[in-house]
């Protein structure tokens, strides 16, 4: 690996100053399971590595029903699964984080890092989009809020400026009778990159058993993760019967633009988008049905 300098800020301010000072020459480290591999391969060669894991604000999970969830960008994936509120109110996002590599990887990799790495196949991104997560981004000129679906711009690229930091995710509290789910297809049963990933969040009105809100998002079937708006819209106001869910699946397939690569063919991926959309919508709806009405 090339020689690097290691910066270890303990406040957001200091971290932003460092990022601003080093600009293009700096890269944030909030897990390492992508960055260290990329530096070894010579794909990224930052002169400065700014470690964000010792900034308390980036390591916090705070949840309340009224204010929703604030998830620090550098919280290790494993901590989502260990958090009872996460498992109860955001099961889809939690299972997505729990699918990142092995336990050894989950103890290091963070949701923020997973997003900032900008991989179209990242497991947590569709799950974040599904639950309507927003990113709080801080830079020298102050802070801004970016919806997760607007964050990635191309493989490995995001809206983040060289001097900006992703500090936390802001996720609305779960509406009554709402829940989410995430599933991916991989050839093995662990340790693979998603061939296709689908996340969905569903809100139901149990009175007339209709879907009042829905968000479906896709991974690994385009240059960036995809918020499948039309697919989501096909569910809203409808009873979630097989025919309706099939429509959503078809719309999701239409929203995807996969390619052939070593992980799967475009033809196979389109097919799997349909299969997983049906499975994920069904699971999320079932969870929503049994979730508390508060």
């Amino acid at each position: 690996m090339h020689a690097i300098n290691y910066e270890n800020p303990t406040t957001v301010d200091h971290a932003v100053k460092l990022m601003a000072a080093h600009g293009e020459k700096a890269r944030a480290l909030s897990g390492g399971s992508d960055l260290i591999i990329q530096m070894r391969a010579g794909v990224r060669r930052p002169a400065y590595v700014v470690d964000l894991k010792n900034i308390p604000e980036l390591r916090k999970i705070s949840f309340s029903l009224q204010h929703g969830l604030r998830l620090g960008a550098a919280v290790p994936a494993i901590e989502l699964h260990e958090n009872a509120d996460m498992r109860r109110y955001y099961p889809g996002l939690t299972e997505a984080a729990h699918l990142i590599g092995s336990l050894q990887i989950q103890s290091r990799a963070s949701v923020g890092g997973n997003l900032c790495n900008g991989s179209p196949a990242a497991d947590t991104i569709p799950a974040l989009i599904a639950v309507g997560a927003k990113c709080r981004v801080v830079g020298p000129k102050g802070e801004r809020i970016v919806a997760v679906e607007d964050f990635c711009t191309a493989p490995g690229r995001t809206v983040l400026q060289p001097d900006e930091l992703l500090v936390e995710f802001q996720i609305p509290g779960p509406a009554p009778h709402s829940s989410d789910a995430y599933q991916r297809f991989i050839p093995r049963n662990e340790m693979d990159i998603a061939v296709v990933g689908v996340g969905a969040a569903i809100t139901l009105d149990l009175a007339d058993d209709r879907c009042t809100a829905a968000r479906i998002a896709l991974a690994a079937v385009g240059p960036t993760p995809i918020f499948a708006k039309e697919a989501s819209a096909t569910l809203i106001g409808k009873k979630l019967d097989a025919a309706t869910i099939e429509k959503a699946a078809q719309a999701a397939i239409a929203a995807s633009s996969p390619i052939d690569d070593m992980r799967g063919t475009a033809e196979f991926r389109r097919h799997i988008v349909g299969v997983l959309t049906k499975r994920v919508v069904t699971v999320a709806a079932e969870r929503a049905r049994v979730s508390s009405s508060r």
Partner: protein
Amino acid sequence: MAASTNGKTFKVIGTRPIRHDGLEKVTGRAKYGADYSLPDMLHGKMLRSPYAHARIKSIKIDKALALPGVKAIITGADLPTLPDEMATGGEGPVNLAHLSENLLARDKVLYDGHAVAAVAATNAHIAEEAVRLIEVDYEVLPPVMTVEDAMKPGAAILNPKLRNKEEGDKETNIASHLQFKRGEVDEGFKSADYVIEREFKTAMVHQGYIEPHNGVAIFGSDGHSTIWCSTQGSFAVRALSAAVAGVPESNIKVVPAEIGGGFGGKLTVYLEPIALFLSKKTGKPVKMIMSRGDVLKATGPTSGSTIRCKIGCTKDGKLVAAKIWMAYEAGAYPGSPVGAGAMTIIAPYNIPHMIIDAYDVLVNRPKTAAYRAPGATNAAMASETIIDELADKCGIDPIQFRLLNAAQEGTAQTAGPPYKKIGYVETLEALKNSPHYKSKLEGPNRGRGIATGFWFNIGMNSSAIVHLNGDGTASVVIGSVDVGGTRAAQAMVTAEVLGIRAEDVRPLVADTDSIGYNDVTGGSRTAVTTGAAVFAAAEDAVRQLKERAAKLWEKKPEEIAYADGVLTTAGDPSKKLTIKEMAKQFARTGGPITGRGSVNLRTVGPSFAATCVDVEVDPDTAKVKILRATCVQDVGKALHPSYVEGQMQGGTAQGIGWALNEEYVYDDRGNLRNFGLLDYRMPTCLDLPELETVIVEVPAPGHPIGSRGVGEVSIVSPPAAVANAIAHATGIRMVVLPMSPPRLMKAMHNKRNGTETQAAAAGR
């Protein structure tokens, strides 16, 4: 459960002692090649070709040499040119010129990852940075990636020196053609009621050992050098390194470190001679460790292949004829295992009429190396799925069908010679009686498949020494590297002969200066052949014990008996000495006792195995779940049953990997896409069920213990067994490895749309 037909009874052999090298391995103290460090040591790294096929126009190293910390850089020009002829080396015949060109390319690079230059620097990071600064000017040539393309007239030629003697001495990529012929095959097919003919394609796959290749070398100014490395053959590393360096073998000592898996892939050299050259150039010890990417790109995988297989049988299930055409990817230099593939593909069967044509074909992929029963697994995928299909057509149980045609003692092998006593029938019977095969498989989208496999096993040379200690214990010194229990097995053989406990024997794997010549740990030869050498060495020690007792008791040696560690003489009960007591008398009866054993085994007993697999196929995603798997294998006589089971389970797991997901994926420019363990998908423990084993023991004739080779044959049948299970679950006969979800899904779609399945399944 051991269905033993062995007449002999043993006290130690067949028991399950704790392995002697276990403690060091569970505490992290065992020293593998990468764990050796020497004072003032340099670190070496390779520059590798980014092109699959190119001519090297120039190499500029000045910038790299200028980097602080860089001590030396070598290229192919620094290596002596070697004769373009075959010599005997690690995994059998080796062409020394090709070996040397594979270590460092000369005028041409022949695959993505082909080594071009090597750097030695004060640490590995600096060496890596220096590699980035070497400038190579390439003239890119068209890559030839498949045997089909390579065999086409007008194909780009990898090696202009290679001539096709069969077709008017033209340039060719066909390195060799073998043919095996018996009877009149066309006549044979006339008597067949059912004939199945299919074309199969199997992917190039890697041995996948977890430990990357490594080596530490120090070149002595007195000409005497030492190499520490993880290898399956310390004497092979010595011979090949000496040949490449142009020095006498005796000038190099190879110290075999613990080895982190080999499966055939560590029989030859990739780094060792280069580390030696860098050490010579710098006067310092040099350590080299491959990255995982280098391991996958540039060490020997085994061949992908195309096999056209046509087999016919009568209504009542008698096989009558087989016509087989097979072409294996050799990689960049000749030497695929297509010969072994040809000699194993119908080895389990007695087929009166057959013809097999086998081609070894150069392609712009890494030079293939041996991999666990080399060539046999590709071949069995073709023959064992067709046999299964024929059994279905005849409406005969697949085990029964195989019993009807089973090779037995006296049956002619593919190459002609008759089998001696073999255990194929016993293996099939044991599978028939296994809990797995007797169980019922229920539920939708599920299927069961069986398949069988054959491997020769090899003998060759081994040496061993047994030292008796003053306290009546012993140590056994071998030169066969221990890849997975050899020391325990050889200590048990020693203990058996000496009539003492396995725990009272210390086994040691010695370096090449400290023990007589040993061929590689490969070909499933170690337990059998080194076992025979150890057996002989221990018997030599017993002979000397008897002489010493005879001396003490004023008897003739032939009047002394030795059993269970006690010396006695007939008709004089007062005369009785345990080995412990005798050991105290060594000094006054002629000094310490050392037994020696050396063998060059002729025929060793071949092995047969059978696999039974239950699968469930997800109808929506075509993902295959392995529900249950059983391996049945004839091992002759199991020395340490736990490690025999381990070999059977390991081969089964690797075979399931071949079946479902493992493959080299190259793009159209000939670059390997999946050069990491994330995308070269070996099974994790979530991908496998409990692996059941049934040990069959049909003693090998002519072996002191009756052992047959154990290590290889278990990998041969699983892919075909999985394919047969998928066929019974889905009605689709897959003819491609791996049977990955995209391929199986395509075949399932085509079946639903009524389009012909084979072409779909065959499409890579």
